[in-house]
């Protein structure tokens, strides 16, 4: 990495980290989390982006060359080939089930039956393996077939292959383009994991009335598993926040009382555990979180970056959360896709003067920059930030890089499918160094378990 | 880095030159299986088999102390992967054996006598449905999630191992200037059947009771074995593909049985690798003297043959040394129990007779044993430098080619679920089919090739 690229990387990272920490920065960071626009800006269609990992680096380069003022870029989440391998049936993918230029879509559904709460609560691992995966992986329809075994073998290979691609991309972004990541690692709130992935919206809304205490118990059981699974995917150097897209905490899905009883306690626990492990969190408050976002004041200051969605009032968010947590957002999907550069410019000026006044603010769309953003609108957003979003000449902030968790930190105790004790029993007497055998066994058990959890997100 | 590059090229040129029967500056010192190097740095056998993070350290120490060595290989067995699938065909040091005892193959029958037709009609399916459940303890409960997770973890661990091996190879090349003696592996089709599937007793019965089935089976598995070997071979074609040959030795088979059962399919498979632009390093384990003249039927200078202790290397030189390069000459017992003086004398004689016109590589009998005495290994090197010199430099153009020869076509790839089947299930494809088909076939092949690593 050349010195100038390194300096650029540090300057951007410093600006991003400082804003999150509510420390002074030289200007408002331009740091959207989900930058869909960047994915397709270089001219690739959605299918190419989702299927051909070799295209990413090219797309990133083109985007950064044209918009070098952007401070972070994120990595992708969905990769078609691994979904094909397993016959994962909860998404429609561009080019496969949808025209190649339509964005991927989640298919709502009930993937856990109400009577299965107790199984999930007793052993989330067993539930995911025995009940959930067979419903979402078509290859498990015939479980004893050669094909279903091979699908898992291929999935293990493909997952590692993909990890290598993601790693190469992150290194390219850092070493060639001086670009930090917006987030690394993804975890849901326990309630959303239950609502989106397992019970489905209809199911969970009925449960809210019929069996609220089961929801509470299930969320509680999911907490350590979700935390462990994301720690396996988060930035080992703790530079970047962990991503949490939060769905069902918005108004009017749940009443404030339901939010306080069912949604918030397990979510707060997860976020606190991630902060305890030395991380920051970037939470998307999807939809309108106005009635509920004051709860974020309960978490340590400057540790959670909150993206305010289009339906939320960002000026009100600043009033409610300013001085506690950094917020991002301000431009709606429609501003960016159907608005004009003049309109964007005016709006950004307004945002800088109000929401951005004392720092703790990052410019972005409402939880994303949409695919169909007009390039001239994105450009107008940047130019307006350069003009109205400046605080000083440089950012005085010590970049946070730490490969180690805080002292005394212990990972939560979670499940695996086959604990070492079981395997050990089967091996019988171990003639040499048990730890050497155990360490590798546990490493791959953990990897496999984390992988499994990735499919309910 | 620059001098490491030079050193790497010098060593590789010497090794490749000798295999090609071209003139080289001296007899290369290039063991294929150098067990001695694995534990020389003080690692237990268990550490070497389980802890991939220790490999580079071990290589560094060995190469520092024996810089005259021309090639060093990667280990073959990685314990964690065995544990993940519950592979029951080996006893491993530190697990089933004391940590300093070497790993051992367990003989047995993993394919029944009446299963030949299944193997012949669909080898991949057969491996998955019949053989793997017998050799993977983790498959005890068919269809269980535990069985599936074992495959998932195996896929992850295989890629993890590939990453560690790649790092090791880069370390050897860039930091130590060291080529590898071979990359990728293939068995003789008959050995695959004999060692991995039917077991020794089974195969010996079969060649009497159902000789046609044995022949058909050997033929049926050639394409899959060749594809699996090519998938693990050096993409730049610099290093030979490894073929440990077991049951072709005297007196397992009579020369007539060798000619009938062992050789035709082996020759076919070897030619396919050579056609793809590779050389081969064949370990002729045991005494191959009644049979090794067959190596003359293969293209000259393409197959490096390791002569085992029981074989007479002087006779090997006389029988086919003008046609293929040979390696060996020092028996296990000499390296373990002999004295430096005895080694020196033996090396001198080898250089004078076997090494006379080139086409010879100094080595033990198919391996340098774990317990070779360091002073004996040193004596072997010193004596080779003294008696094995031909000239001042090697004039040989290094062979390094990412592409197969023009017009070459790989054998038909085996898969479990062909793209056509998957495509029919997907129904209408809205976008670019090739984008979906490409990765599907890539991972199908990777998985399919992987299956073939588990029967020996």
């Amino acid at each position, binding site marked *: 990495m050349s010195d100038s690229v390194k300096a650029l990387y540090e300057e951007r990272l410093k600006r991003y980290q400082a804003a999150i920490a509510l420390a002074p920065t030289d200007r408002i960071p331009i740091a959207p989390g989900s930058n869909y626009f960047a994915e397709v800006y270089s001219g690739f269609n959605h299918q190419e982006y989702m299927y051909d990992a070799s295209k990413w680096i090219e797309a990133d380069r083109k985007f950064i060359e044209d918009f070098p003022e952007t401070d972070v870029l994120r990595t992708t989440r969905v990769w078609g080939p691994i979904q094909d391998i397993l016959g994962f049936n909860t998404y429609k993918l561009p080019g496969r089930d949808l025209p190649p230029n339509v964005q991927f879509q989640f298919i709502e559904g009930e993937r856990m039956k109400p009577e299965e709460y107790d199984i999930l609560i007793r052993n989330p691992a067993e539930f995911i393996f025995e009940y959930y995966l067979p419903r979402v992986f078509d290859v498990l329809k015939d479980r004893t077939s050669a094909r279903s075994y091979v699908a898992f073998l291929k999935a293990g290979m493909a997952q590692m292959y993909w990890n290598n691609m993601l790693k190469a991309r992150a290194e390219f972004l850092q070493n060639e383009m001086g670009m930090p990541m917006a987030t690394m690692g993804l975890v849901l709130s326990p309630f959303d994991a239950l609502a989106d992935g397992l019970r489905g919206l209809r199911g969970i*809304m*009925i449960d809210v009335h019929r069996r609220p205490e089961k929801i509470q118990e299930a969320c509680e059981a999911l907490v350590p598993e979700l935390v462990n699974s994301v720690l396996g995917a988060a930035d080992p150097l703790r530079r970047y926040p962990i991503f949490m897209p939060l769905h069902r905490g918005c*108004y*009017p899905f749940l*009443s404030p009382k339901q939010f306080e009883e069912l949604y918030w306690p397990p979510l707060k626990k997860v976020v606190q555990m991630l902060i305890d492990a030395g991380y920051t969190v970037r939470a998307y408050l999807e939809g309108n979180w106005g009635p509920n976002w004051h709860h974020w004041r309960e978490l340590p200051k400057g540790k959670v970056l909150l993206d305010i969605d289009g339906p939320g009032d960002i000026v009100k968010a600043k009033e409610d959360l300013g001085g506690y947590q950094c917020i991002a957002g301000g431009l*709606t*999907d429609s*501003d960016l896709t*159907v608005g004009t550069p003049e309109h964007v410019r005016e709006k950004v000026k307004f945002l800088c003067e109000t929401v951005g006044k004392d720092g703790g603010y990052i410019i972005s769309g409402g939880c994303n920059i*949409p695919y169909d953003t007009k390039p001239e609108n994105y450009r107008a957003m940047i130019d307006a930030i350069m003009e109205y979003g400046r605080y000083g000449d440089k950012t005085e902030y010590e970049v946070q890089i730490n490969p180690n968790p805080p002292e005394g930190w212990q990972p939560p105790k979670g499940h695996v499918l086959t604990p070492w004790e079981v395997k050990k029993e089967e091996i019988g007497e171990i003639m040499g160094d048990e730890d050497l055998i155990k360490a590798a066994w546990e490493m791959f058990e953990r990897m496999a378990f984390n992988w499994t959890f990735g499919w309910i997100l | 880095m620059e001098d490491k590059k030079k050193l790497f090229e010098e060593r590789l040129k010497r090794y490749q030159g000798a295999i090609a029967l071209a003139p080289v500056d001296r007899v290369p010192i290039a063991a294929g299986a150098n067990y001695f190097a694995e534990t020389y740095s003080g690692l237990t056998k268990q550490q070497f088999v389980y802890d991939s993070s220790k490999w580079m350290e071990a290589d560094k120490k060995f190469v520092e102390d024996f810089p005259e060595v021309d090639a060093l290989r990667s280990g073959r067995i990685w314990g964690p992967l065995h544990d993940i699938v519950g592979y029951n065909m080996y006893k491993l040091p530190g697990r089933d054996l004391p940590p300093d005892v070497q790993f051992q193959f367990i003989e047995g029958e993993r394919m029944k006598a009446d299963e030949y037709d299944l193997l012949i009609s669909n080898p991949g399916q057969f491996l998955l449905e019949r053989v793997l459940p017998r050799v993977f303890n983790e498959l005890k409960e068919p269809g269980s999630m535990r069985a599936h997770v074992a495959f998932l973890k195996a896929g992850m661990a295989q890629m993890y191992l590939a990453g560690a091996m790649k790092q090791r190879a880069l370390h050897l090349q860039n930091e130590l200037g060291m080529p590898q003696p071979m990359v990728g592996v293939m068995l003789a089709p008959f050995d695959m059947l004999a060692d991995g599937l039917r077991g020794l007793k089974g195969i010996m019965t079969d060649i009497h009771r159902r000789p046609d089935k044995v022949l058909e089976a050997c033929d049926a598995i050639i394409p899959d074995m060749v594809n699996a070997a090519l998938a693990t071979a050096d993409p730049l074609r610099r290093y030979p593909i490894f073929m440990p040959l077991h049951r072709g030795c005297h007196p397992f088979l009579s020369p007539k049985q060798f000619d009938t059962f062992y050789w035709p399919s082996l020759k076919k498979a070897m030619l396919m690798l050579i056609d793809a632009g590779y050389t081969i390093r064949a370990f002729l384990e045991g005494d191959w003297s009644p049979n090794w003249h067959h190596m003359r039927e293969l293209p000259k200078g393409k197959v490096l043959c390791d002569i085992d202790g029981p074989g007479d290397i002087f006779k090997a030189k006389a029988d086919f040394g003008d046609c293929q390069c040979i390696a060996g000459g020092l028996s296990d017992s000499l390296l373990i129990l002999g004295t430096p003086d005895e080694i020196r004398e033996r090396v001198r004689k080898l250089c004078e007779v076997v090494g006379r016109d080139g086409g010879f590589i100094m080595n033990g009998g198919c391996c340098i044993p774990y317990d070779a005495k360091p002073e004996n290994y040193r004596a072997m090197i010193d004596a080779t430098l003294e008696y094995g010199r031909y000239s001042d430099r090697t004039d040989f153009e290094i062979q390094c080619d990412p592409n197969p020869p023009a017009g070459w076509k790989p054998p038909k790839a085996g898969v479990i679920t062909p793209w056509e089947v998957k495509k029919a299930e997907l129904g209408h494809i809205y976008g670019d089919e090739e984008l979906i088909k490409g990765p599907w076939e890539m991972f199908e092949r990777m998985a399919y090739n992987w299956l073939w690593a588990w029967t020996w």
Partner: protein
Amino acid sequence: MAELTALAKALVELDEEQVMELVKQKLDAGEPAMNIIKECNEGMAGIGKRFEDGVYFLSELIFSAEILQNVMAELEPHLKESDQKAESRGIVVLGTVKGDIHDIGKNIVATLLTGAGFEVVDLGVDVPTEAFVEKVKETGAKVLGMSALLSFTYPEMKTVIDALKDAGIRDKVTVIIGGAPCNEQVREFVGADYYAIDAVTGVNISKQVYG
């Protein structure tokens, strides 16, 4: 609003057991299924009112739909052919536009509309332009509701409205759009008559249109 019946009240209170018990009693007493449905619809309207007042949230709307579904299953064997075509307040055509497969919001709207006495023609998700136009023509519906969750659908909604113009029926139908990425700016862009911020707003607009 007149005093609610016991059944409608139980439904508004989401008292599932009570609702089912009352339905059973009424059926046993020989009360016509259509009358029971009418009472339930009054209850659903009450639920919509509570939502509007910020007392109820989506979880209550969805749960009430679940209860209603159970009631309908109970009534099914007692419904006569003629009952199906009961007098409705008016026809509303609904659908999620082409390319988008999300239907949570649209389904809630459909439930509330039905509860309010409208006949709902639900075209489902990923609905092509022509299907919207044809269905509006065929039914003579005065209200068309288009739903979307993804922002790439803005041009799709515009296309539907343009097609209504081309078919010469734009002035005969009131177009309402709704869904997370919609707002006034989007309404203007696509040329719709109304943007409904939530399901109840959509129902109220429909009531206005049909008077």
